[in-house]
């Protein structure tokens, strides 16, 4: 039984005349791992930001649990975002706050709990991402992989229902990447977190995702179950997965600065 948790209908977004997201519609299901793939600069991050209300769409609707959230007020967004999290590409930890303050940020803002309870919960969250006794450090004192883990701990502090991961393993060494991938998978299974991942890494994506989507030229040109990908006939998917130079995806990037 699949329950829809998030739905996007006819989403469009332009930047200064350049169409980045062109009439995209898709549903996400509770508990799944969905990976959005596509070349660099194709608009994956913009797509995620639109869903989370960090950018406002030119047209189109976004439904969260069947409620239209597209034009929510500031206050409504605050409530919605308690249920959605996002792991930013670089972690986006608050660099003037310690690890403890970063991880307890959501607890401080949205719960009334004692300092002892808070300490306990922060330690538990850090343990869940495989870290210990680093509460008093500042983000600048951590490695990139550790920063990502702390950011993950901060994201899941209030048990969100949906978490977006923007390129969670890009730029990490293979072992750290495996660790993060494993964490994403574990959180999805243990906490039933619907996970929407933006990634270029075909192998990892195919191994952990239930479905993948391919964004090209502003459109979702493919949505496939991972188990069907091997025998999938979609030329875009075939080209992207195998990294071929020929196919429907153009390899020469056209910038808007080019002379017409």
């Amino acid at each position, binding site marked *: 039984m699949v329950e829809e948790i998030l739905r996007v209908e006819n989403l469009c977004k332009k930047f200064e005349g350049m169409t980045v997201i062109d009439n995209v519609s898709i549903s996400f299901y509770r508990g799944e791992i969905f990976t959005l793939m596509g070349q660099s600069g194709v608009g994956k991050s913009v797509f995620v930001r639109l869903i989370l209300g960090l950018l406002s769409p030119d047209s189109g609707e976004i439904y969260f649990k069947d409620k239209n959230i597209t034009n929510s007020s500031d206050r409504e967004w605050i409530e919605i*975002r308690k249920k959605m*999290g*996002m792991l930013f590409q*670089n972690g986006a930890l608050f660099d003037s706050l310690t690890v403890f303050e970063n991880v307890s940020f959501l607890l401080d*803002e949205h719960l009334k709990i004692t300092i002892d309870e808070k300490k306990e919960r922060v330690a538990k969250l850090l343990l869940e991402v495989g870290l210990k006794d680093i509460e008093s450090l500042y983000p600048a004192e951590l490695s990139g992989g550790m920063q990502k883990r702390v950011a993950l701990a901060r994201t899941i502090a209030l048990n969100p229902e949906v978490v977006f991961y923007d390129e969670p393993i890009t730029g990490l060494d293979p072992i750290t990447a495996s660790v993060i991938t494993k964490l994403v998978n574990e959180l999805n299974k243990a906490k039933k977190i619907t996970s929407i991942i933006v990634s270029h890494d075909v192998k990892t994506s195919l191994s952990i995702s239930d479905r993948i989507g391919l964004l090209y030229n502003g459109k979702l040109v493919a949505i496939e179950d991972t188990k069907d990908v091997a025998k999938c006939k979609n030329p875009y998917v075939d080209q992207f997965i195998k990294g071929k130079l020929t196919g429907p995806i153009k390899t020469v990037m056209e910038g808007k600065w080019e002379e017409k």
Partner: protein
Amino acid sequence: MIIVNLIYQFFIVLFREIGNFSLFILETFKWTFRRPFRKKLFVEQMEKIGIETLPVALITSAFIGMIFIVQLYYSLKEFSLESVCPGSLGLSLIRELAPVLAGLVMAGRVGAAITAEIGTMKVTDQIDALSILGVNPIQYLSVPRLVTTALAMLGIVILANFVGLYGGYFVGSFVLNLNPRSFISDALKDLVMKDFFASTLKGFIFGIIIALVGCWKGFNVRGGSKGVGKATMESVVTAMILILGADYVLNLVIW
């Protein structure tokens, strides 16, 4: 034609900027009066803005008093009008020099710091992270900076008035041959309550300008760390121009 087009473009950009800035100001004021009130952030900013900038603002103001009295003395001595030196110093210092110079110094010190900090947060996605964590970035970042900068400026101007006056007093009585006994009372004798009030009001308003411009420029940074540097410079220049403009308008309104 190119010139006309350039001027046209310039005004389009100018009006768009003014529009955006006005919206930002409204938004900041709106969030100033909303819950929650995060005391910790205000205390933090108070320490940063008030305490860290007080020395430089006061040193500047002491020197202004010291330099200005010398200038006054040598200009007025030619007409044997040395006796009006303290009075002139008092008037110009309290009405103009102390608030305006404190404002300009703070624009360089605090305005730049605010833009650099918020701009850095912007380019490293920390502002978006705030939103995602269910916190309004304007409320979390702008409001504490606005309130504390305005209050700090108010306090700094009051202190700067005194420090400037005593700077003038020391130079006037020990270096130049002005009467130390009557210096301070002479300096204050032409001033009325309104002048002191206007002086602090100016400081308060300049503080608001510095913080709003600083935050706005920070939130609108684009283009990585280079963008942060550019925005910081723009923040200082914009705040300085707006302070001088506001000073002019306030002078028309008050006197």
